[in-house]
């Protein structure tokens, strides 16, 4: 992979994000605020992109502060468990969300509005309840907010817009996480390898299903 590859460049930017987060340099985020950028004018990849070497033709558009909040919240949704199951940010889910909401297609443009206004809502709610930015909350404080918005069907009217955001955000976190090789392994996906024969489910699976033998 060439060093000019945008993914490589992004991983360096991610590293900077991490440094900022680790050193508590959040005043940076506070000062910058969430000045919303308009819908990106970028074009999509067109009807005939290179399928073997997919590149993302649009730029990421999240601000540093938005990325920090995205990172914090993504890791609350899918935290580090063990070496087999790292946190969302360890497999670069925040960068995936940035790529997603920066894309010029209709679904992503819709999600962009939901995500960016939702991030603003999260900080506003944190300020209202704890007089702090969300990234500065203690784990217990952050969870108190998440508990109010993580079940959209049960959310109170005051929390409904936050809950709608959380649903979309969680969907992207899960989508981003389980489409990585690490996430696929975590749920037990074992395909994408050539096999000499296809034998169907192994005996222990057939037993669980109560199937005595393959019908053909």
């Amino acid at each position, binding site marked *: 992979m060439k060093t000019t590859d945008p993914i490589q460049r992004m991983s360096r930017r991610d590293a900077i994000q991490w440094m900022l987060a680790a050193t508590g340099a959040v005043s940076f985020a506070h000062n910058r605020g969430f000045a919303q950028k308009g819908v990106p004018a970028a074009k999509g990849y*067109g009807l005939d992109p290179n399928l073997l070497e*997919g590149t993302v033709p649009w730029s990421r558009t999240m601000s540093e502060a938005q990325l920090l909040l995205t990172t914090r919240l993504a890791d609350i949704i899918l935290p580090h468990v063990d070496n087999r199951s790292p946190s969302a940010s360890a497999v670069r889910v925040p960068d995936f969300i940035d790529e997603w909401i920066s894309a010029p297609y209709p679904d992503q443009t819709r999600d962009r509005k939901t995500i960016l206004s939702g991030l603003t809502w999260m900080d506003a709610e944190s300020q209202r309840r704890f007089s702090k930015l969300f990234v500065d909350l203690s784990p217990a404080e952050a969870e108190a907010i998440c508990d109010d918005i993580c079940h959209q069907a049960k959310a109170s009217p005051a929390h409904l817009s936050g809950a709608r955001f959380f649903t979309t955000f969680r969907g992207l976190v899960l989508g981003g996480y389980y489409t990585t090789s690490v996430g696929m392994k975590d749920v037990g996906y074992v395909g994408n390898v050539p096999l000499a024969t296809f034998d169907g489910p192994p005996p222990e699976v057939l037993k669980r299903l109560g199937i005595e033998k393959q019908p*053909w």
Partner: protein
Amino acid sequence: MAHIHASKTKPDYDVIVVGSGAAGGQTAYTLAMEGVKVLMLEAGRNYDPATETPMFNTPEQAPLRAMSTPDKPFGYYDATIDGGWEMPDEPYTNASSEPGREFKWWRSRMLGGRTNHWGRIALRNGPYDFKPYSRDGLGFDWPISYEDVAPYYDKVELLIGVYGTNENLENTPNSPDGILLRPPKARAAELLTHRAGRQLGIPVVPVHRAVLSERLDSRGIPARLHPNNPRAAAILTDEMSRRAACFWATPCNRGCSIKANYQSTTVHLPPALATGNLDIITDAMVASLLTDQTGKARGVTFIDKKTGRDHQIKARVVVLAASAMESVRVLLNSRTAQHRDGVGNSSGLLGKYIMDSVGAKLGGRVPMLENLPPHNEEGAGDGAHIYSPWWLYKEQLAGKLDFPRGYHIETAGSRRMPNVGSFGNLERLSGVGYGRRLKDEARRYYGSSVAYSGRGEMIPNDDCFTELDPTVKDRWGIPVLRFHWKWSEYEHRQAAHMQRTFAEIITTMGGTPGSLDATGREAIAEGGRIIHEVGGAIMGADRKKSVTNRHSQCWDAPNVYVTDGASFCSNSDKNPTLTIMALAWRAADHMIAEMKKGNL
């Protein structure tokens, strides 16, 4: 002969074939193998599955983790390039924007067309399917019967390779012994479906798909297909021996670089090119037919998309195999002194009776599939291993159902590679909002969903047709198609029956179906969405009531053949591709015989 530039054509082609997919590929193969000089015109670019197929590429290697976008509606890795529902350079219009009145038109502008990405489900029409009017008084009988087409089904299955079994089921023909390849083993969800089917009286059997579950017999088959043509047999032996058996990984809709599934680009075109009898021009957008004073075709006009220049090419015979709607468009746009409303339109029926399959889907969750030990379920390129042929013929004939024609069921559900949407409703399923427990729930629910899709037969009706839009033209200046569409109550009721049946299957498996639509009006897919569109140049026994005859030949211009789905006068529940290929082979045989007799 080979791939050539638009300026390098020869003066003496026997046949021009417009299109390079299932119909064009098969027509060109049959002709070229028998020594006929063929020029193929393809509107899209050249495409090589051996070097362009993203085998084994993962979501992380693609924009948006390979999820679908308007540029790539079936996902980034789908083989389709320069195609989709909407193409900026090639619009189409609908006469009505009311719900249920729009037709969506899928195009695939590339060498091999839609064969590069299709689902490879390869079902024969049965005897009833050629004589539907005689059974229930609706629609039209074909001017041919199953017996006319059966030998061609045999040949096509031998050539392309189809897995499956013979089940002796009503209107679901067996193939002769020794043709079908071994069926792949059923996956977990398919096994549960099979068991539920037994309880419900619904047959669940191996599906027929054009995927090599084992290598083809590259000595025996060519000798069988070309018994009096040793050169053709030798060429086919060489090309067939280059096809590997499926290695049970990477989805078929990406195409297949090891040629383990059928694509025109890997199966039809290589041997046809190897004969030296086939020239191919890509990026060649055919606009219209040229005709002479007697009304016969002289050739075609096409636009070289790379230069924008017009070209005219002559031949003894013109074959339209451009996909059903595109072939109709070329005929409609060929308005000459002898054919004022387009070539083949003396009956007034050109563009009429277009059909798609009735499609409806229902998903559900099956607890027995939760938390299964990890195991590989990709199978034959992520495609189906089982299906349910229509099973209620007798009830229907006895008037016990409120819709006249059948559908088959396609089953999906396995531990396939996760995509961005795979866990979208995890919170609703599990009640867990976030955190460590959400990961446990993802492991539990992964692979536990199933989905059933119906593919049913619609009745051709007067409200479904296409015509040239009076004002809109595409980038090349060619008038675009305007569609008219309306499902009848037959199709709505059939879609409702599908929904009820699928819910019953899921419940019988101990699962919970999603919410179902009892009317069928919401569940039914828009016209065109199943991409089984056929008709528009329907074949018949009476030239006043059809556009083409029993040989797929235009009544009004006998040296014009339509070998794609446009000639279908009914659209059985069986996916149309195998029948398109069988009829194309049959039409090509007719051309050869007629040319020998001096009739063309």
